[in-house]
């Protein structure tokens, strides 16, 4: 695929002027019970990610990649250790604080996109902006611009079921960018996709990072992992190699 043309990502988020740490994890542990057993998903992970960086996390299934991503995404809380995002401690936020923090600072892309099947591509992108109380006019214009950025300018009014897997993932990426997040997280974004679609997504992520978005990607996909500037290996809940 060719890199998506059209509007620059600068239109949707400010490019940082100084390189500083945006993600900071210190000795993070995360245990959770599965049945009668306590699973130690993370066993003392420390990690720093700078603004504008592009990090991929790889490792075998069950090594704690997704748990790490969930902690960074503030949808889960550590059993111990600290997590700070954009200079703010997020490891002990209340549900309300965490929700608001995610809305304004973090963009999520999931393996299975999870677009709202009953909304059009444009409405799906508008959803986080509506939640952030952006005016209808502004969110409409911005959603259109974002869809154009991911190369779906002509398919704004299509429902997810009318789009291909690659197109749906691009709508999900546009949705993740809706509120100009400081950090974008992706969990297996190319999983279950064919090679061509995978390549399209890799190109789009490169473009996003080049345009200034900080990215953390969890993946099994070698090509996607190699596209990142930093590649972190995990095993048994620990970072084993970078």
């Amino acid at each position, binding site marked *: 695929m060719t890199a998506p043309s059209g509007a620059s990502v600068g239109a949707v988020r400010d490019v940082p002027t100084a390189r500083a740490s945006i993600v900071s994890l210190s000795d993070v542990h995360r245990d*959770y019970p599965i049945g009668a057993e306590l699973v130690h998903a993370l066993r003392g992970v420390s990690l720093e990610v700078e603004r504008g960086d592009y990090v991929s996390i790889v490792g075998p299934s069950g090594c704690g990649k*997704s*748990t790490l991503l*969930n902690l960074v*995404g503030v*949808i*889960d809380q550590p059993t111990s250790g600290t997590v700070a995002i954009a200079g703010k401690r997020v490891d002990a936020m209340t*549900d*309300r604080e965490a*929700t*608001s*923090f*995610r*809305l*304004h600072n*973090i*963009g*999520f892309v*999931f*393996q*299975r996109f*999870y677009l*709202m*099947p*009953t*909304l059009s591509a444009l*409405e799906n992108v*508008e*959803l*986080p902006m*509506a*939640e*952030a109380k952006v005016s209808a006019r502004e969110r409409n214009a911005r959603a259109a611009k974002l869809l154009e950025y991911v190369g779906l300018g002509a398919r704004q009014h299509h429902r997810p079921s009318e789009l291909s897997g690659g197109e749906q993932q691009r709508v999900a990426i546009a*949705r*993740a960018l809706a*509120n100009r997040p400081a950090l974008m997280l992706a969990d297996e974004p190319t999983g279950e996709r064919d090679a061509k679609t995978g390549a399209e997504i890799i190109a789009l992520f490169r473009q996003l990072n080049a345009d200034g978005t900080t990215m953390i990607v969890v993946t099994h996909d070698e090509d996607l992992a190699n596209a990142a500037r930093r590649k972190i290996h995990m095993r048994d809940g620990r970072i084993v190699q970078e």
Partner: protein
Amino acid sequence: MRATLAQASLIRHRARTILAVLGVAVAAAMLLDMVMLATGMRESFRELLLVRGFDIRLAPKGTLPFDTDATIPHVSAITAVLRGNPDVRDISAVLGGSLHIEADGRDVSAAVLGIDPKVQGDYELVAGRDVASADAIVVNEYLLRELGAKLGDTLTVATGFDAQTRTYAGQKKLVLTGIARFIYGAAEQSSAAVRRETLEAMEGQKRRDRASLFMVKVRQGANPDSVRKWIEGHIPNVTAISIATAIAQVDQRLSYFRQLAFILGAVSLFVGFLLVTTLVTVSVNERAGEIAVMRAIGVSRLHVVEQVIIEGIAISLAGALFGLGLGLITARYLNSILSEFPGLPMAIDFFLFQPRAAWSALGLLVASGIGAGIYPAWRAASLPIAESLRREAIA
């Protein structure tokens, strides 16, 4: 956006939504009918008793009006006593009996009331003139049809049939001057009215100066209950019945229907509630992944709950509106069944539409629909996001 999502979710499963709305509509219709039944009888009976403005009825001691053949003696003396109370405005003495009318060789029988046309409160004239003279009679349409007669006809009527001698106490020719609607007459009941003195004269000595019932109107501003007590104190051989007592007595006789209405109304409400709860729970469970993602991208818990509740409200509202129409139709049908209840005035409605009661019932149903959505919505919005996403990915 939340309304759009709720609407979209309802449209996504059209068959399911239609079924749920239908289910709530039937529950709403049943609830409305039962509210109409519980409040209707009493209200309808009250309206009926008050239709001609008489506040108190006097019946022979220990009886209800026209419940037995007993009569009250000394009408003129009682009237004089009643006139002694300045709060009494009008007095209508009524003598009841049965009448035999000859029609083409047949003997048609009818209930007859002897009244004073100036103060009577038993019928409304539909056509012709009232019983202005001693030889006039008014009949209801049912009797008119039975007789095959028309206004102006002269009828041969007899009263006081003695079964042993097979003779009548009195016979007379009366001119049919008017057609009336008898307010307290049962369906398919032949009714007629003549002047009280005409009926007394025909019935003979044993019913002279007697009445089956007195109806009393009190002056504006006077308290009917204190007048009733005064009457019972001054006239010992009568039972004075106020509107409230009469309603209480009817309430007791028809308490079965009120209780049935209450039970079925409660069951309907519960069924409506259960239907909305089930639907919303399943709908929410199905969308656990979607809800988790919405929460992950920053949609607040409250907004997720709102969206789910909007679905519940939409189903309940649509069902309630549809149920309103359905309820009115079924109420008419059920009323037509109960109107055949023996001995009840035709004008009594068992199912009476009272806007306030109806809106409160439907409001209650919609409120229960909202309540039905709250728990599943809150449960879904409170699920741990990471855990829901993981479970969804495994599924």
